[in-house]
Each structure stands twice: as C-alpha cells, then as structure tokens.
C-alpha cells in the first residue's frame, strides 16, 4: 500500500485533533453557545454542565480527588506561568528560593528568569547523560528557604520521563510544593497526582489530540491546600484564579481528549512502542554512527531522538521533506545555538547539530514508519557521501584532533 504524503511525525510540537474530539466540541459553537457563567438561563446552564463534565474528565485522567482542582487556562505556557509565578508571589514571605531543571521547557525557564529579576533565587539542577535528574542533588538543593520545585514529567525533545513519585515524596516530606509540567505526559504515561504527591500540574490540549489554545492547571486543594496569586484579574472566573469567559467548545474538546487519553493510554502506549522500536531497529540495522539521545527505557513510547553523526540536521530535514520531524540543530532555531536540552545531557555541539526528533503519534502507521526508515537511510547516506567529516572518519582521522578554523 502506498503511503499518503506528507507524513506527520512531529507529535511533540502538536497533534492533530482527534475526530472524536472535534465531534464533541462542534455543537458548542452553534447550538449550545451560552456563557458558562450565565446561570440564569438554559443556554448558560448547558454550557456550565459541559464545562463541569470536561473538568471531571480531566481530573480523572490525572487522578485528582475533586474536579474543582482543575483550572482552565489558554495552554501549558499559561499554566506554567500561573503555577510558578502564582506560587512564588503567594509565598514570598516564607522564602525566596526555587528549584527547577536545566532541561525544562522555555515557558518554565523564562518564568523563573522573570522571578530572578524580582529577587528570587533559582537553582537549575543538572541532569545526567541520559537526561534524568539526580535525587541526591535535588535533596541537597532544598533549603528552609525553598518554596517550590518545578520538574517536568516528560521532556519535549527527548521524551525522557522523570522519577515523579520519588520527587513528589521528597518534596512532600520537606514541605515544598512540587509543580510538574505535564504537557507532554498526559495520555503518554500514567499520571496520578495523589500517588505522585504533585501539587500543581500543567496540561495542554494540543499535545493530546485536542485543539490549540486551551490548557489546564491542576491546583491541589487538600494536604496541602495550594494558594496562588492570579496573573489575570477580572470577572473572577475559575474561583478567581483565572478570569476570562470560559472557552466552552475548547474546554469540551480538552475534556474529551483527556477522557480518550485515559481510556486508551494502555493500548496506545503498546502500539506506539512497537512503532518506535520498529523505527529504531530499522535505522540502527542500516546505519552506523547513530546515537540515541536520552534514556532508552524511561521515555515516552512515541519519542525517538537520534543523532546521525556527520549529517547536519537541517540538511536531513530538507532531504526528507515529505516527512515532518524536527531537529535540535542550530540551523533550525532562530538563536543559531543547538539544543540546550541536548547540551544539558553533555551531548557535544557537533552531535547536537545532527539530532532528529521523531514524534510518533496516534495516527501514524507501520507503513509510515517503514517509509521513514527508507527515506532517512537514503538521505543520510547521500549526505554522508557529501560530508567532509565522514570522509575524514573513513580515512581514519580522529576529528577531535583536527584544528578547526571556526567562524
């Protein structure tokens, strides 16, 4: 069977809306279009009921005790900002120290930079060569002044999963809040805010087959009760935590997406893992000098991040133009710096420039994987034939001994 081109395999960047999700949200544009805050009439009450159901579906997906713990936002960026700044500002009389991870998403890192400019102190914990935080380093970093620990569930570049239950346990024992950016985790790995002692958890619908522009923040209500200073002030929606008329169709969609994520997590994980293994085995059996970035086992099933030595990432993307993936190469970013995540793992710049992130998702097929293997192998070989580095390596030259001119 011929595969349909182009192939989308960039499911960390965003996902397609699942047709079942789209179907669920559509009536809320033209039929049940009331304002969820309009309790006085049926249009409003129906909208509110739909929002209540979505809140429940999301709470269930993450093991929250009560639906009220789910606050709707515009996405994980806003949830990250609200959790980090909201907690720091609320607790500023209790301390001035915060802890996070070097490999966090920019929405987290930049929120911390903003707090640093206000006088807070931030510890950026390193990760090991596989991308995992050291529990000893975390334990040592927590002081009586520490207010919050922010560690993501799943990394967006390398798919690495952090030991959430251990982190939560430690934070709980030491009396600091644990915020977890789970944008890449919902529907990918089992999540349970109770078992994992997570106090705040950020989610985004468009990473789990829902629409862009809607997200949520889980805010623990008991043991401990977490209080946040809001960022958006206004009509007092979402118990004052996030003012603004609720985006009912989007919320309905996110609820449906969360429900599907919960119900299909097990089967989908198995399927994606088989596809990922097929891709990795296929590439490894046909290409030398390729390296997996990040932990092989502690990672989401759909993620494969590989460095193809001596093949610059953007030139690879150009060669496989009918397959949508992404690269940690500097050439694909505005900053001309290669991926800071790979750097944090100790991956050298020369290998970071050759990294490709495959994000396999719900709608990818075995045929697409096979086609991808063929194309990537073909292009990698073609580009290596064109690569002066490959030539030197074939001649037996150790590239680390060459004095490069740089520029």
């Amino acid at each position: 069977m011929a595969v349909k081109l182009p192939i989308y395999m960039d499911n960390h960047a965003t996902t397609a809306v699942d047709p079942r999700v789209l179907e669920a949200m559509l009536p809320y544009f033209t039929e049940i279009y009331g304002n969820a805050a309009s309790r006085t009439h049926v249009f409003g009450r129906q909208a509110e009921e739909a929002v209540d159901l979505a809140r429940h579906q999301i709470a269930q997906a993450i093991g929250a005790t009560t639906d009220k713990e789910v606050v709707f936002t515009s996405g994980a960026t806003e949830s990250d900002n609200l959790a980090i700044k909201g907690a720091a500002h609320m607790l500023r009389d209790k301390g001035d120290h915060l802890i996070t991870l070097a490999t966090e998403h920019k929405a987290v890192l930049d929120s911390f930079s903003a707090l640093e400019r206000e006088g807070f102190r931030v510890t950026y914990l390193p990760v090991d060569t596989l991308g995992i935080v050291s529990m000893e380093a975390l334990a040592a970093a927590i002081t009586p002044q520490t207010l919050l620990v922010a560690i993501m569930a799943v990394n967006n570049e390398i798919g690495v999963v952090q030991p959430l239950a251990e982190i939560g346990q430690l934070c709980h024992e030491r009396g600091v809040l644990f915020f977890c950016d789970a944008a890449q985790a919902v529907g990918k790995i089992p999540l349970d805010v109770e078992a994992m002692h997570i106090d705040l958890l950020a989610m985004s619908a468009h990473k789990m087959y829902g629409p862009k522009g809607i997200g949520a923040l889980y805010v623990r209500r008991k043991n401990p009760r977490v209080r946040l200073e809001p960022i958006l002030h206004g009509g007092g929606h979402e118990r004052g935590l996030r003012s603004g008329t609720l985006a009912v169709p989007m919320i309905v969609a996110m609820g449906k997406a969360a429900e599907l994520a919960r119900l299909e997590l097990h089967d989908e994980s198995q399927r994606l893992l088989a596809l990922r293994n097929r891709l990795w085995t296929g590439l490894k059996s046909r290409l030398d000098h390729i390296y997996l970035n990040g932990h092989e086992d502690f990672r989401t099933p759909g993620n494969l991040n590989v460095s193809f030595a001596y093949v610059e990432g953007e030139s690879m993307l150009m060669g496989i133009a009918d397959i949508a993936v992404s690269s940690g190469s500097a050439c694909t970013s505005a900053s001309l710096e290669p991926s800071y995540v790979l750097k944090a793992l100790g991956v050298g710049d020369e290998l970071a420039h050759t990294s490709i992130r495959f994000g396999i998702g719900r709608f990818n097929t075995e045929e697409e994987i096979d086609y991808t293997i063929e194309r990537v192998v073909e292009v990698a070989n073609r580009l290596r034939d064109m690569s002066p580095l490959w030539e030197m390596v074939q001649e037996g030259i150790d590239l680390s001994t060459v004095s490069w001119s740089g520029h």
Partner: protein
Amino acid sequence: MAYSDKVLDHYNQPRNVGSLSKDDPNVGTGVVGAPECGDVMKLQIKVNAQGVIEDARFKTFGCGSAIASSSLATEWVKGKTVAEAATLRNTDIVQELNLPPIKIHCSVLAEDAIRAALADYKAKQDAATKSEV
C-alpha cells in the same frame, strides 16, 4: 523556513561533489568551519599551467544553504584564473541564492573556503619554486 528554488536545486543536484588528490601540487585544498558550529566545508581547486582553475570539487557538512553555497562556489571558480577566483565575494552568493539574513554565514564560509583553497595552492607553488632554486 522556505528555501529559494536555487538553494533547492543545488541541494538536490549538487554540482562537483567529491574530492581531488590533496597531494597533487596543482590542487589547492581549503577546509573551513567546525563541526561544533554545524558546518564544515572542504573546497578544492585544480589549476592548470596557464593558471586557470580547470576543476573544482566540494564536500560540505552543513545545512541546505551551506551545501548550495559551496556547490555554487565550485561552479563559479571553474574556468576562472586564480586571480579572478580571488575576487569572488560572499555577497554574490547571497544574491544568486537569495539567502535570508540568518544564512549569510553560509556564504561567508564559502568565500573563506575559496580563499583557503587558493592560499593552499599558492603555498604549494611557492614551496615548489623554492625547492627548484
């Protein structure tokens, strides 16, 4: 990022990919860039007795624009005299390939590669004349 048709053309059908013998006294080799920076270009020229570049080859590790810049550079230097080749400027490459601002460094690297190849050729010739004396 949208690539210009000319960049795509050079990327898909690179001109003069390959290597000439480094040890040939009439071959000048330039290797510029660094793997950590994400681009390395090797450009070689072969000069005949009349001082005309009769052949040129390249190999490039780098993005599509870097590949296109070096491919174009080999095309341009072929048939030129050594003196003429030295007058090629990166801005000519930028214009021909319609490179966006963030890809200008690719053209700079290609100009550097031509210069390095010319310098290597000249050094070899100087060494040869010296040993004749």
